[in-house]
């Protein structure tokens, strides 16, 4: 066991080195200074407290999305629809705020209800994918993609229709909520400890859920061999639906955080692509909850740090995307190579 863990680590390291090498090569071809670029990414992400807090802000929804995806991946499901689930979570959250912002309820209660609303919205939307799969025979990848489009159009329709700003409807979203309805942040910072705490609690919960509970084990069984799990007495489609619903809850929570902490309103691309990024993180950590937090942090740091590239070096900041993408590819490649070389677990 120990032996295999070490080889595992070595292969992952090789993958990281290869990804860095490939990115360097791309930069050299583009006649960009790789060392400067990497240095700027590092400084731009963890060079100061402000930067670190920016990374943490980005980390929160990414970690929540990844947390949800760990559940669906465990159940053997490709929940591509997570983007839509985040969006509908954000829509529900916004809806609750709009309904209650004129009321006399204490803001804390309204915020709490908005968070719950977001979770409910995400769960319902995810269940829709699950129902389509279970009862309609629609593969969750295609169902999820379709529902992502539907969620986007619902979102746009709301922003440009019923919830538009007085006067001109705008890409910049609905009118911002009053500051009383923002989730409290640290003084002088955009970082909300509430959001951060919710994300950390979520990942810890899911870690134990998947590791130590009957539910987690049965979910794993469904994911690895649904036929056998069924014969062993696991109600498979019910567990699939539960996995979708749980993932939707975390996705919806991420959507709610985008509304309550980051944008304070509903905007067209409220999910910020965290769902897709979360898929990459989940693949990279091989669906292990333990590694999700640090790797998600790394991805968030890349996102924030790469902003320095155009500012300082006049480089295209998609470079961070190249690094993220190649990292996933090389890790998957290395897993393949490891199996090919016959190194057994």
């Amino acid at each position, binding site marked *: 066991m120990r032996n295999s863990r070490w080889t595992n680590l070595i292969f992952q390291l090789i993958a990281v080195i290869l990804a860095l090498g490939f990115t360097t090569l791309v930069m050299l071809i583009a006649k960009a200074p790789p060392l400067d670029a990497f240095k700027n990414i590092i400084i731009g992400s963890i060079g100061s407290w402000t930067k670190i807090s920016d990374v943490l802000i980005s980390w929160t929804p990414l970690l929540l999305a990844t947390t949800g995806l760990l559940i669906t991946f465990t159940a053997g499901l490709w929940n591509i629809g997570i983007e839509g689930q985040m969006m509908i979570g954000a829509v529900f959250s916004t809806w609750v705020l709009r309904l209650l912002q004129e009321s006399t309820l204490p803001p804390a209660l309204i915020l709490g209800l908005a968070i719950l609303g977001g979770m409910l919205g995400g769960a319902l939307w995810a269940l829709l994918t699950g129902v389509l799969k279970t009862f309609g025979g629609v593969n969750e990848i295609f169902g999820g993609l379709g529902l992502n489009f539907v969620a986007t159009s619902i979102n746009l329709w709301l922003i440009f229709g019923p919830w538009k700003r007085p006067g001109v409807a705008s890409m910049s979203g609905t009118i911002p909520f009053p500051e009383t309805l923002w989730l409290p942040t640290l003084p002088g910072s955009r970082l909300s400890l509430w959001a951060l705490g919710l994300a950390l609690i979520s990942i810890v919960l899911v870690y134990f859920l998947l590791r*130590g*509970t*009957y*539910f987690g*084990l*049965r979910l*794993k*069984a469904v994911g*690895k*061999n649904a*036929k*056998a*799990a*069924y*014969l*062993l*007495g*696991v*109600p498979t489609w019910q567990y699939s639906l539960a996995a979708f619903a749980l993932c939707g809850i975390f996705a919806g929570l991420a959507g709610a955080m985008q509304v309550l902490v980051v944008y304070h309103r509903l905007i067209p691309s409220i999910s910020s692509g965290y769902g897709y990024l979360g898929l990459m993180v989940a693949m990279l950590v091989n669906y292990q909850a333990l590694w999700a937090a640090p790797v998600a942090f790394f991805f968030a740091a890349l996102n924030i740090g790469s902003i320095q590239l155009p500012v300082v070096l006049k480089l295209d900041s998609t470079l961070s995307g190249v690094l993220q993408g190649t990292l996933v590819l090389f890790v998957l490649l290395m897993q393949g190579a490891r199996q090919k070389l*016959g190194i*057994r*677990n």
Partner: protein
Amino acid sequence: MTIPPHTFLLYHIGCRLSVVSHFVIHLIIIFLSFSHSLPSHSPMNVDLRHIHKTFGKVHANDDISLDIPAGTIQGILGENGAGKSTLMKVLSGFIYADAGEIRLDGRATTIHSPADAIRQGIGMLHQDPLDFPPMKILDNFLLGRAGGLFPDRKTARRDFLALAAQFDFSLDPEAYVDRLTVGERQQLEILRLLWLGARALILDEPTTGISLPQKEKLFATLKKLAAQGMTILFVSHKLEDVEALCGRVSVLRQGKLVEMMTPPFDAGRLVESMFGKQVTLAARTPARPGLVTLRAQNLSLEDSRLQIHQANLDVRAGEVIGLAGMEGSGQTLFLRACAGLLHPVAGKTLVGGRDLTGQAHHAFKKQGVAYLPASRMEEGLIPGLTLTDHFVLAEKMRGVFINREAALGLARQRISAFNIKGTPASTVESLSGGNQQRALLALLQTPLNLILLEHPTRGLDIESTLYIWAKLKERCAQGSAILFISADLDEILQYSDRVLVFFAGRVSPPLDAAQTSVTQLGQLIGGKGWETLAGEAAHA
């Protein structure tokens, strides 16, 4: 009762030959008419020298040297885990040997991959045929064929049909592979390897999934191919198969080559070489049937290929019923219907007097019905999960969190009770076939009313087979009824109290196993003698 093994084996062979003589004659006629179109290849000599392979602490192949002249049918005998499959995987490029040399026609060579092996003329037929389920048969057939992006389907189709006709395999090239039985998949794989130009053919336990007539067809074919210079490595743990077919036999035990023999084979010595000890056969205990646990009432079933009309059966507590028939004759449909995995189009299924018709498998499970599928790794066990995980899954949930200590204790107890070679942390895919089957049995809950098994001992050595039946008989003694499918007629007659024969969707009335001979059974599964049967049924 203890009998010397060779007597036991001779009994088998004697019965078989008489049953299938008409098939053999039939095959000879077929082969005479097709022999001109058989693929002819230059002969190849396969020489393995000092092959070593270890997995962790296990020395799977320990200095094995084997020189096989072209045109030989070389038998490789050994119990499960003796290293047979490992040796064959080395030869077919799936794994590299740690040390040693492979020489083909006297030239030392390295085989990099299975694709490389087939390029060099070595084709391997696996224990679990590797295929791509959602494909059409013809597309699967075309796989691995060099020749550009757009294969010539027309020619391939013609070749396929010609080859299939030679072996009397009734495979529709436009059907889908996932609809095939294990036996039919093997047939397809054989055709494909021949078509790809194999000069040496490795068959790993090829007779386990297929029916008796299919097996006879196969043997005749292999002999014909060998006569034309094909080198054949025939891996098996069944002495009678090896004796009927092979020109030479080598025996592996615990990674070492311990015996090499040419005909006439001394069966006793072979068994001793395989196991290092004598084997005891379980005594046959007459059943004392109790209450009806399962009643199939005018059960009509159908799938895309087959229909069963109005089958009736009462299964009583403590009895064993064997379902005989060629692959795909309807016995699987019937068994699955008894498990609630297939809903009947008409009729009723009652378990313990309760009508469960149309209910899901879990409702049956609740009434004490257990189902053990044939494809252990596809339907029975969950690759990636440990033995402990499996035992926890099979038990009832207690609370939310799994008690690891208790789970480990349970796993240890079951592992020792079922003599499984593995640890609580072993993943099921790391176990050998026999141990996987033991694990499946170990997962059965207590008490059970009805145990449904597909091919419970397929691919297992004699020792494991005996062990598993001993465990099943214990269950019968506790009041469980057993329904099982087997392609091995001897197994059916040996362990059943009553036998149901299936032929193309027709179901025979239950036959008393004690009053039925292998010959009679062989004719029935081939579709002969059903007229008299109807009379018997009426009489009964």
